[in-house]
């Protein structure tokens, strides 16, 4: 078993807006590209052109249908990667000390040179956020792009996780969730950001912003109806209205 750091200086993490995520998978592939080329072993693909292609991904998008009691069914796109939990069971379960949570920023990482690929951490993670790379035999997981966010070889604006930089809809936000004044903390406060499966007691750092209520336009019809009051009951009356309305235009006769 591995000891988990009691406290971290910062709680870096993602805030994912489920109201805006269109389910395009941009984050999934950007992550795959960066992390294939960077931190640790490449994310491999087995049978990539065959009958059962299966590769390692650190971030996947799931889509769920929600059917309310009244009104239309909805589709929610749900990107999921490691949530960098404060009480990370994947760390404490690790028999070699390969899994750890960084003191300075709370990022949960795997030290691949110590990982024996036993898979206990993936078993213990209630979110299914870890994937064993079959080519390398080591556990892979979201690093929050630890090799980008402090990287002095990147322009400052690019020092964010690859998934955040690429998200076309701007549905992914990155920052210090331990600082109540940070932009991400404020966003969470404003929008009622939620923990994923809080009952598991893992205290995830990443937060999800829930979808706003939908399909409400008819509820406003009482307010809106006066806007649609006919200018005349008969088509002939419409032309009379037109004549008067034209006079009222700037430069008209009245």
């Amino acid at each position, binding site marked *: 078993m*591995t000891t988990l750091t009691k406290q971290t200086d910062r709680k870096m993490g993602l805030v994912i807006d489920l109201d805006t995520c269109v389910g*395009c998978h941009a984050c999934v592939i950007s992550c795959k590209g960066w992390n294939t080329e960077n931190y640790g072993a490449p994310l491999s693909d*087995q049978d990539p052109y065959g009958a059962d292609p299966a590769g390692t991904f650190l971030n996947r998008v799931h889509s769920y249908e929600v059917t309310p009691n009244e009104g239309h069914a*909805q*589709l929610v796109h749900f990107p999921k990667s490691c949530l960098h939990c404060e009480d990370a069971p994947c760390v404490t379960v690790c028999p070699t000390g390969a899994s*750890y949570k960084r003191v300075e920023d709370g990022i949960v990482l795997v030290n691949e040179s110590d990982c024996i690929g036993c898979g206990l951490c993936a078993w213990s993670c209630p979110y299914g956020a870890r994937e064993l790379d079959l080519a390398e035999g080591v556990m892979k997981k979201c690093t929050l792009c630890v090799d980008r966010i402090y990287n002095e070889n990147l322009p400052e604006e690019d020092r964010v996780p690859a998934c955040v*930089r690429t998200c076309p809809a701007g549905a992914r936000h990155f920052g210090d969730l331990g600082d109540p004044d940070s932009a991400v903390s404020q966003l969470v406060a404003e929008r009622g950001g939620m923990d994923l499966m809080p009952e598991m007691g893992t205290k995830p750092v990443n937060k999800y912003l829930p979808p706003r209520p939908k399909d409400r336009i008819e509820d*406003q*019809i009482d307010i809106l109806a006066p806007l*649609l009051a006919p200018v005349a009951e008969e088509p002939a009356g419409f032309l009379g209205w037109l004549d008067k309305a034209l006079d009222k235009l700037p430069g008209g006769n009245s």
Partner: protein
Amino acid sequence: MGFNQPKLDTSPPVSEEVRQTTCYMCACRCGINVHMKTGSDGKKQVAYIEGNRDHPVNKGVLCAKGSAGIMQHNAPSRLRAPLRRVGPRGSGEFEEITWDEALDMAASWLEPLRKSAPEKLAFFTGRDQSQSFTSFWAQNFGTPNYAAHGGFCSVNMATAGIYTMGGAFWEFGQPDWDHTKLFMLFGVAEDHDSNPIKMGIGRIKARGARVIGVNPIRTGYNAVADDWVGITPGTDGLFILSLVHVLLKAGKIDLDYLSRFTNAPVLVNASEGPEQGLLMRDEAGKELVIDRITGKLAPFDQPGVRPDLHATYRHAGVTHRPVFHLMAERYLSNDYAPENVADQCGISAARIRAIAAEIARVAFDEAFELDQEWTDFRGETHKTMVGRPVSFHSMRGVSAHANGFQTCRALHVLQILLGTVEVPGGFRFKPPYPKPATAHPKPHCGVKPDCALDGPHLGFVHGPDDLALKDDGSPARIDKAFTWENPMSAHGLMHMVISNAHAGDPYKIDTLFMYMANMSWNSSMNTRGVIEMLTDTDEAGEYVIPRIIYSDAYSSEMVAYADLILPDTTYLERHDCISLLDRPICEADAAADAIRWPVVEPDRDVRGFQTALVQLANRLKLPGFTTEDGSAKYQDYADYIVNHERKPGIGPLSGWRGDGSQSGRGAVNPEQLDRYIENGGFHVSHIPDAALYYKPWNTAYQDWAVGMGLYDKPEPYLFQLYVEPMRKFQLAAEGYGERQPPEHLRERLKATMDPLPIWYETDQQGNEGFTVNALTQRPMAMYHSWGSQNAWLRQLHGRNPLYVPTKLMRQNGLQDGDWARVSSPHGEITVPVMEMAALNENTVWTWNAIGKRKGAWALDENAPEATKGFLLNHLIHELLPPKGDGLRWANSDPITGQAAWFDLKVKIEKAAPPDDIAECLPAFEPITSPVGKGVNALQWKVGK
């Protein structure tokens, strides 16, 4: 174990070099940073691709396709060398040959055609982004038979927009994302302007603006819309005209805008005879209005004139009324009342009214002004720019129906009635648009042996005289574009080329030459039939379509059906220009264009297709490619991009012309490509502040556009609520004029060529018993058929169930994982189903182009794309079912010829239990792969 935190290098080098070019993973054309590292072979290789933050299209973001470009670039399906067919067509048996052999072979086929009958070459390009070049090549060859893929994509949208308002959506314009407060999407295909729309939706939702999605399927953009309208497919036009009805009745229209900037006040000739229904004009040809100040007739553009929407003009016993009267008469009719369209559209009357009211509220109660003075074409100066923050977007969903042209027209008329086009908060054009139909070329089909064609192939007709007909009245073009069957087919009809060539109707051809168009698979209706046409032989045992040349970068399904393959490069290995002469990357605030350049050299014996065309032109000594002394003007495509001038001072690229300081117009600059590369692969010319809105009528914009070379002179124009050219076709059908339609088309022309938008149900004859709408959508993470070869993307979408609404699942006793037999009047498929609740209750759908033929794309024959993926194409025919009148009617829009993919009606029933079915039906024989199969495992890491 104790706590053990290793020391990490958090600042590793990212790459050795970043090369900036333009993405081609779809048609969106984002800017990309290609990170290069030295590979094991000592050469620089592509290590990572991300979006370019400075680029006007994507501003740094990039979609899944774009980031997966590295897997497209290294795909095992890449063709390696020119191929000559050695087995029968369709066998996939080829031998590799040299480029000299390939080009000599092509030239030996084409040279005699050019000398005797240039029309015997049919040259059609698919997802081509170099149409100004490929059409130039075809024009210089002399064949009238050229077009790209617009006919089966979105010609209705593009053409209706240009005839109505001088531009349409996507490349033509965009919502004013900075100011819009209500954004309404109709039937959007999710790859058209994909990143800009995602960015825009994200931005407007962040500030609380409302998004309304009108689409039978609630995925993607519709999933995040605040309100989803799950409309019955094909009824969008009726819904829109009902909105028009309600808004008009409530007077929630912009009368000032209509009177100043549209043809609503223009008088319509009411005298019986050959001019009935045409617009009244003065001797100079200017449309006439009544001036509200003087009460007298005046040309619309006379300084000081106040066009009157109300007044009529009585002359010689006839009262001539303005267009606006005709509109009021039509759209105030109770036929369009919400209660009378609700059932047909599948939208409650209350919801239609609520949406209309919300549109009215935002357009008028939330109107605002930008403190920006501007001067209109009548010389009147306006102190501010009035904003109406309602915007719309639409693409193929409404376009690909046989009533699509009129539906697209209806949508533009709605926008214009609200005064939301080219105003702050509304819809804005992107240069070179606005550009009215009259400023576009007309179609040309003048063929002479050994000569160039007499002008551009494609264009806009303004009456029967502009049709592409021979002297005997028969179609001049193999696809029958610009004929009475589809007069306004501005993009041609690529989907009819193979069937017409096979039938020898209107004439036989010799060589079919295609580029990037997967016609023997997902790009054709009636896939099996097309395969048979491509392989059919005559009595002498010769192929009915004698020769087929095809160019593609990859081992697509179409490769097997060609006699000669010209292998293209990947998009990272080539020169391209995304040109203002073609389909540029402009923004509403700026003119912009871009290049691709070889960020890596090909490691195969392949050439960019456009370079191959230049070299073929040089062998054929085509005019336009040959100097007076007979030498070649251009060595390759890059040479053409820099040195070609369409008009003096205007070339494919607008940036760094002349001495490098000129934009738009200027002499050839030999260093132009270097300047583009230094600037990240693109060029931007910003529009001045006073010219940013009201562009069609704004003198500051018009002058800027002339300076840029977009126009030769200022061309202000009125929006065409009433499209007069359509009336000219009706007049012909009524018997007026020299050029007369065939008898069997008269009634249809009278009915469909209505100069004001109408809605009609698409032809349902033959569909008895087939009552379920069947649609396709393209996933955001894939583009056409290209995705399947991509090791990363195919893990996202490797198979495609048929999504079936809950009600139809129950009715047919279906559960997820079951197989269903889906049939249409034309064919039958057996496919896996999955329930989906967020779906119009009488519509089924699936992802487009996931299904693959065994042996293609370097995939294993048991790839899920080939066993559990399928095409709906097998259910769709290019012709409608027989009606018993002895004629076969095209499954197309009668105005433009747009392929009516989305008119498909099917029935669905449970098939055998899942264990008894191994794969989707119909199953096709595998084709032999000319490139073998991909590797068994990937660990792609360039750097160490």
